């Protein structure tokens, strides 16, 4: 027999039972019983018909599956019968799961495991005494055959000038050793990795591998891209491969260089120049080699390198090895603590939402279950085995969990797709490739399943624990239950919502404080001009002359007040910070540094409080001079500050390094350097001529900055055609810098609202349910003379209690959880801030009371007579 023949069998059984009962009844009648009596007697002799049918069906086999299918059918019908319950539950779960996995996915993509490579655990960054090594050193290490190392690659990030038509565009690329992709274990999605014979640097023709994003952007994702040529730094490169779409570069943090080209003389200059080279090294360890073994085996090799080139002081430091991802890398890359804390906060928020969602669904399920206790009691009384009732309830909740999880995953996929499309073109293109974190997904789904199943079981357990449940459903049964699971759940929800809202408000206030902060320099009329000269054809000397001329020419244009150059733009993505400056026998732990040309303070409108500006005769060969800011002067300088000496360690002069004295010639007013929210920090400026690096030009315009942009561009092009030029308003640059925080605050406030909404639904459900249960009690109270106001008060008091207990719990929880965030907040902002705690507390209580208002109002309108009749 097959299960689809079940209906026949069912019919057959009915017929069989009926014929049995008929026969028995006939016999009883023959004994002299009346028709009626005979039928009852037959029935008695037969036993519980429904149960016998059930037991007989069980014997048919297939039954478990049939029961399960039936339960699913029944469950679906049940969910359809209460659509609001279903929608709210599924949405809660979906938001919980989607938000948690999505946010964690982002965190993971940006920080944790953000590099595409085979066996990522085998790869380590190597720093043989210096963070950047020369090509010569790389070659030496490669050919040294270190037994622990399977392969060694070198790479460095570089700005490249890409020619598109007549324009030059500045793009970011990685210049890599040709074995780069082979050692990393990355296969291009199209084409090939660099081949063996491209191992020879400078081999013609040049080849390039491009990123998926570049292929889409520049070649419209055309399949015939292989073999096409691009012009980079005036050299022609043939495209031999396109990287996979979700390739995550070794830089991490979503940074995605657009092209990869092998090291060559044309791009980096003379490869054998020992002073030249800023290569980063990554080694792949042999199988089974540990981190410490690798580190130990590097020692002798680096030692012999030092003996080979004793004059090359660059590699005097400690040999360092660290993984490609994780906290250690983040620390070395100087990821600001704020960002990490913010993302941790987001994860906290997401987990809170998941918890609130679970509490919400649990509350709804428990309330619904209690409403069904009668149904369950009836079913048990009719002989349904307990396990069947439980099985059925579990099926129903499992269905709910399943729907919620599906919706959650769908939400996550939508988020991930949106994130893929997000392309932030900062100085390095930024792409997010979210991976669905399986562990987290399983965790959230597990949590959801556990919550729903447990809370779905409560009614079943309650009613089967007490087989007299039919009778326990009496007047006032609910009132004696001061503390129930449902109330506890809502209290928990309130507490979580409190933490959520307080952390969101904290962050929002921090942000507001940040964005209104005064940067301490001219913002309105300032333009930044970035010119990227070809590194290879422009020596430092030629570059310096070029910028001198550029500043000269631009300053002669109409509408320009002053022009200056600075190697670092304040409040940009890159900061130049050095430690271990010594002054008056004290160490300055952290100083913002900038190399600027004369006139910088004028262009930025930062007043000099004392002393003089740099002048044209502060040259590379004249005595080193520096200007410090007020904070620096107040903290470290003696006397009037001028004529103090600061000692700066010279990079690459070994340990301990040689210190070079700088004479302080001026003191400038404080401004912001790293971020708008930072506390006053010591800063030091020195002349660009004594510390040269290609500057960004800062142009102070008379009135409308936009009007002179074209003129500036023309001037620069006339000086050096085919050079990428980027002119921006300082205002807009800052707006861009504030964008992440804006997105973050949007996310946070959105999630805060979501949490609040979920909690409101929770309290509404519980109060409405409670009112339903107390209908009879309220009826009696009113029959005995209670006024409407009294009843209203009764219900609201109850809700108020829940809200208050929840708020107090939340406050305690928040002040504990949020402590670690203190460091990331702008100066002078306490974590436990009375105002925000009180505001959030009041708002939550208010919302709680509002949610209770409607059920309370309904309770006060109860007609006593009807209420009593319902029992």
């Amino acid at each position: 027999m097959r299960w689809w023949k079940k209906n026949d069998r069912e019919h057959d059984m009915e017929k069989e039972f009926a014929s049995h009962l008929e026969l028995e009844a006939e016999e009883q009648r023959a004994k002299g019983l009346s028709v009626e009596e005979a039928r009852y007697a037959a029935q008695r002799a037969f036993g519980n018909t429904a149960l016998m049918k059930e037991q007989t069906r069980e014997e048919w086999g297939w039954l478990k599956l049939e029961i399960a299918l039936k339960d699913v059918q029944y469950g679906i019908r049940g969910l359809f019968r209460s659509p609001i319950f279903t929608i709210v539950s599924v949405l809660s779960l979906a938001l919980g799961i989607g938000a948690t996995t999505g946010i964690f996915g982002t965190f993971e993509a940006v920080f944790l495991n953000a590099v595409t490579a085979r066996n990522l655990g085998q790869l380590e960054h190597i720093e043989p005494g210096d963070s950047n090594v020369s090509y010569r050193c790389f070659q030496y290490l490669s050919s040294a055959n270190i037994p622990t190392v399977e392969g060694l690659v070198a790479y460095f990030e570089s700005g490249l000038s890409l020619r598109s038509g007549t324009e030059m565009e500045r793009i970011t690329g990685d210049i890599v050793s040709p074995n780069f992709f082979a050692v990393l274990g990355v296969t291009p999605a199209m084409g090939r990795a660099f081949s063996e014979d491209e191992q020879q640097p400078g081999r013609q023709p040049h080849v390039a591998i491009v990123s998926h994003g570049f292929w889409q952007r520049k070649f419209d994702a055309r399949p015939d891209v292989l073999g096409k040529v691009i012009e980079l730094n005036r050299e022609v490169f043939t495209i031999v491969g396109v990287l996979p779409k979700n390739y995550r570069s070794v830089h991490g943090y979503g940074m995605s260089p657009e092209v990869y080209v092998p090291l060559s003389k044309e791009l980096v200059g003379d490869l054998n120049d020992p002073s030249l080279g800023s290569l980063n090294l990554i080694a792949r360890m042999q199988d089974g080699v540990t981190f410490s073994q690798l580190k130990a085996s590097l020692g002798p090799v680096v030692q012999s390198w030092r003996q080979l080139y004793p004059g090359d002081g660059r590699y005097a430091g400690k040999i360092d090895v660290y993984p490609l991802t994780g906290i250690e890398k983040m620390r070395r890359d100087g990821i600001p603590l704020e960002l990490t804390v913010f993302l941790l906060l987001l994860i906290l928020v997401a987990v809170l939402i998941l918890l609130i969602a679970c509490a919400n669904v649990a509350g709804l399920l428990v309330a619904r279950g209690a409403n069904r206790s009668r149904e369950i009691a009836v079913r048990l009384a009719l002989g349904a085995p307990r396990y069947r009732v439980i099985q059925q309830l579990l099926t129903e909740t499992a269905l709910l969990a399943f729907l919620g999880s599906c919706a959650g995953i769908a939400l996550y996929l939508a988020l991930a797709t949106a994130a893929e499309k997000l392309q932030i073109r900062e100085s390095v293109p930024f792409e997010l490739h979210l991976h669905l974190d399986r562990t987290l997904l399983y965790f959230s789904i597990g949590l959801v399943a556990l919550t729903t199943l447990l809370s779905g079981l409560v009614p079943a357990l309650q009613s089967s624990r007490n087989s007299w449940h039919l009778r326990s459903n009496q007047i006032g049964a609910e009132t004696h239950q001061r503390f129930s699971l449902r109330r506890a759940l809502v209290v928990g929800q309130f507490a979580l919502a409190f933490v959520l809202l307080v952390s969101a408000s904290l962050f929002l206030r921090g942000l507001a404080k940040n964005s209104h902060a005064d940067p301490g320099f001219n913002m309105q009329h300032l333009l930044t001009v970035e010119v990227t000269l070809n590194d290879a054809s422009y020596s430092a000397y030629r570059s310096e002359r070029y910028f001198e001329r550029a500043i000269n020419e631009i300053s002669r244009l109409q509408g320009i007040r002053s022009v200056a150059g600075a190697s670092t733009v304040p409040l940009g993505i890159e900061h130049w910070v050095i430690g271990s400056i010594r002054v008056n026998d004290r160490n300055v732990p952290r100083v913002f540094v900038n190399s600027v040309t004369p006139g910088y303070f004028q262009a930025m409108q930062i007043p000099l409080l004392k002393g003089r500006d740099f002048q044209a005769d502060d040259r590379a060969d004249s005595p080193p001079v520096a200007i410090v800011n007020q904070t620096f002067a107040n903290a470290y300088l003696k006397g009037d500050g001028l004529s103090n000496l600061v000692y700066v360690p010279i990079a690459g002069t070994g340990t301990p390094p040689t210190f070079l004295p700088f004479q302080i010639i001026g003191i400038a007013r404080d401004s912001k350097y790293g971020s708008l929210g930072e506390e006053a920090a010591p800063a030091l400026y020195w002349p660009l001529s004594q510390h040269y690096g290609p500057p960004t030009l800062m142009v102070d315009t008379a009135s409308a900055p936009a009007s002179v942009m074209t003129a500036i561009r023309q001037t620069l092009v006339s000086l050096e055609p085919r050079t990428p030029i980027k002119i921006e308003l300082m205002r807009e640059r800052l707006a861009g810098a504030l964008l992440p925080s804006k997105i973050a605050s949007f996310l946070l406030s959105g999630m805060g609202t979501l949490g609040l909404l979920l909690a409101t639904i929770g309290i509404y459900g519980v109060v409405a349910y409670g009112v339903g249960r107390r209908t009879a009690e309220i009826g009696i109270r009113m029959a005995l003379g209670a006024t409407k106001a009294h009843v209203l008060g009764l219900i609201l008091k109850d809700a108020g209690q829940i809200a208050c207990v929840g708020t107090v719990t939340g406050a305690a929880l928040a002040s504990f959880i949020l402590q670690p965030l203190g460091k990331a907040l702008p100066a002078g902002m306490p974590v436990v801030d009375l105002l925000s705690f009180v505001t959030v507390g009041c708002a939550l209580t208010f919302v709680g009371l509002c949610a209770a208002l409607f059920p309370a109002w309904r309770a006060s309108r109860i007609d006593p007579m009807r209420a009593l009749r319902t029992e």
Partner: protein
Amino acid sequence: MAKDTRQRANVLQGTLDMLILRTLILGPAHGHEIGKYIQRTTDDLLQVQHGSLYPALHRLERRGWLTAKWETAQDRNRQFKYYRLTAAGRKQLSVEESKWKQMARAVAQVMWPAEEN
């Protein structure tokens, strides 16, 4: 109530199967006849709830020890579902019988050790 019924059925299950098979060795019979027969031959000592015969009958049928067919009764003009013993059913009956005998002997040895000698 529900609990009661299940317990009794469980106690009887093994024995009930054997009794049914034994009853059917006399020829085909329908459920009511089987129930009556067991009740009568045990002098109403085994009070089988008639309904609980059916799960057992369907179980035995599924195992291939019985076949079932709706047939018109000889004495009246009505259809009943008649159960017949199959060859496998006969074999099973002897298995159960010998098991039961062993069991009965074992119980007897415990209960009346002296009489056995």
